[in-house]
């Protein structure tokens, strides 16, 4: 009987005390920001459509050249017209969007993990470890990364999607490492970290259980904004012809048709929808990211 009372008491209190967890604060901020909420909705719809539709698309048919309908403008057969090979643009658009998003996502994830690990280790341990790691970061940051990525893509043997993700990740983790390091440095100076040390908590546990949760909002924000950026870089590189291999079309592939002035000027249906799709995706992700950023920074919260 007594235990029961305690139990109910506890439940009551768990509900009463407002959680200050990173996720709930972020969720509340998104709900408050109409633009971010709309973005979330649009992006969700978009992703469901893209990933759903690509399940049903016959990829073989999509890549077969149909000489009878070269460069046909939008019609009932081909809602967004066809390209120089008579291939359906809408289908390519859907596949491209799927590839762009998936690859952007993995690049963000891998670069994020590397950046987080390096940043948090350097920041937490400081001293020589920090010095060494930051030397590397500083060096990578001053490299002309776009050019080097292009060079790597060109000379890589057995070039495929994985190679591309790998090359991109190598150059894109440094910014995150720097950010996480500076935040970790600030966190490390706070007494709760010192307290944990004096309480006998091992370093790895302090990093994971104490420091990491306090960085979670910054990490989420940063990854979100990076996701948008990385999709942009990927499609940009593909546009230049140094992105995804031809077997994996991306949105950038469609846009790259516009390097031909005739297509740019007269056959808008080939490149414009892909451009708009990139724009919409990036805007949506960014609006969500900005709302998350406000949530992470108490000064900027909407209320």
């Amino acid at each position: 009987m007594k235990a029961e009372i305690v139990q109910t008491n506890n439940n009551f209190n768990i509900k009463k005390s407002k959680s200050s967890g990173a996720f709930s604060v972020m969720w509340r901020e998104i709900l408050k920001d109409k633009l971010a909420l709309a973005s979330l909705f649009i992006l969700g719809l978009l992703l469901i459509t893209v990933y759903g539709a690509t399940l049903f698309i016959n990829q073989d048919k999509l890549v077969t050249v149909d000489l009878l309908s070269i460069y046909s403008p939008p019609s009932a057969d081909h809602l967004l017209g066809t390209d120089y090979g008579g291939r359906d643009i809408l289908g390519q658009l859907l596949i491209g969007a799927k590839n762009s998003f998936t690859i952007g996502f993995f690049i963000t994830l891998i670069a994020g993990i590397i950046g987080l690990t390096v940043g948090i280790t350097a920041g937490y341990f400081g001293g020589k470890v920090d010095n060494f790691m930051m030397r590397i970061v500083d060096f990578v940051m001053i490299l002309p990364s776009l050019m080097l990525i292009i060079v790597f893509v060109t000379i890589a043997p057995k070039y495929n999607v994985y190679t591309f993700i790998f090359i991109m990740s190598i150059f894109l983790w440094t910014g995150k490492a720097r950010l996480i390091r500076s935040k970790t440095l600030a966190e490390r100076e706070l007494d709760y970290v010192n307290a944990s040390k004096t309480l006998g908590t091992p370093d790895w546990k302090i990093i994971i259980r104490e420091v990491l949760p306090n960085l979670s909002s910054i990490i989420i924000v940063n990854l979100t904004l990076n996701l948008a950026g990385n999709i942009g870089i990927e499609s940009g590189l593909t546009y230049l012809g140094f992105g995804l291999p031809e077997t994996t079309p991306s949105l950038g592939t469609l846009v790259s048709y516009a390097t031909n002035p005739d297509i740019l000027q007269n056959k808008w249906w080939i490149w414009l929808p892909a451009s708009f799709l990139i724009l919409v995706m990036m805007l949506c992700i960014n609006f969500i990211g900005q709302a998350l950023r406000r949530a992470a920074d108490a000064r900027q919260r909407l209320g």
Partner: protein
Amino acid sequence: MLKFILRRILIMIPQLIILSVLIFALAKAMPGDALTGQLASSPKMDAQTLHELKQKLGMLDPPYVQYFRWLKGLLHGDMGMSIIHQTPVTQLLAGRMENTILLSAAVLILSYLIAIPLGIVSGRWTDSWADKMVVGYNYITFATPLFIFALLMLFIFGFVLGWFPTSGSVDIRVENGTFSYFMSKVNHLILPAFSGAIISTTVTIQYLRTEIIDTKIKDFVKTARAKGVSESNVYTRHILRNSFLPIAAFLGYDIVSLIGGSVFLESIYGYPGIGQLFITSIAQRDFSVVTALVMISGLATLVGTLLSDIILSAVDPRIRIE
């Protein structure tokens, strides 16, 4: 001050060495002799001649010998030959470099001209409608990839409206040195420069705005107001000067993004600069040019970070005195 710069340059040296080693290693991984621009692997060649040619080119020497030979050449301004153009790389670069510097400078200046007033307005009158507009503008420019924006600008203003030329850096029909030559240059520059500038305003605006918001609640600003300093002078003398520091610190990384940006801008607008040269060279496998360009870009970035450190130490007395 001089000591500071000297030490800063000293720190640059190992970075430069590592950079050169990296590029050397990359060049070795490229087919042919990317360093001198000579082809050593033509399919028609038999093994014997190939070996002789390689020997002649020094490709069989130990790597460190080749590295130092290349470095020595580099220091004498010898960047090898372009296979495609059959001219020395240095010669090939000269004219294009000028174009790229012109374009980059235009982008940088325009971007500051747009970003600084917007950042100030937005930071000073936080939460006003003007601030909200600037923040909205910033969200959009931050989200838009440069190549999409440049392409749309080209499509709208170049092709649909026909206001600006769609390719090149100058009209070939005008004579060098005349006023119309100058005007033609400017006319060719406007579209790429604006496209690049608008997309690169984001960082400056963002930093300036948050920095002003942070600075204006600081105690020393209260002290200034308590002295009776007029509102406009509180901004010009106290808040803005302090708020410009991070922008100065960012100049070096601005150069990194300018180099990246020029690759896109020049290939979209067919603007004959080093960015465009880079893309065509790599497509034509003209690797000696590629190597030279990467080395130059790396050097430019290093000089950029050095420059921003010097500027920063000139404005901020806390850095000047060690």
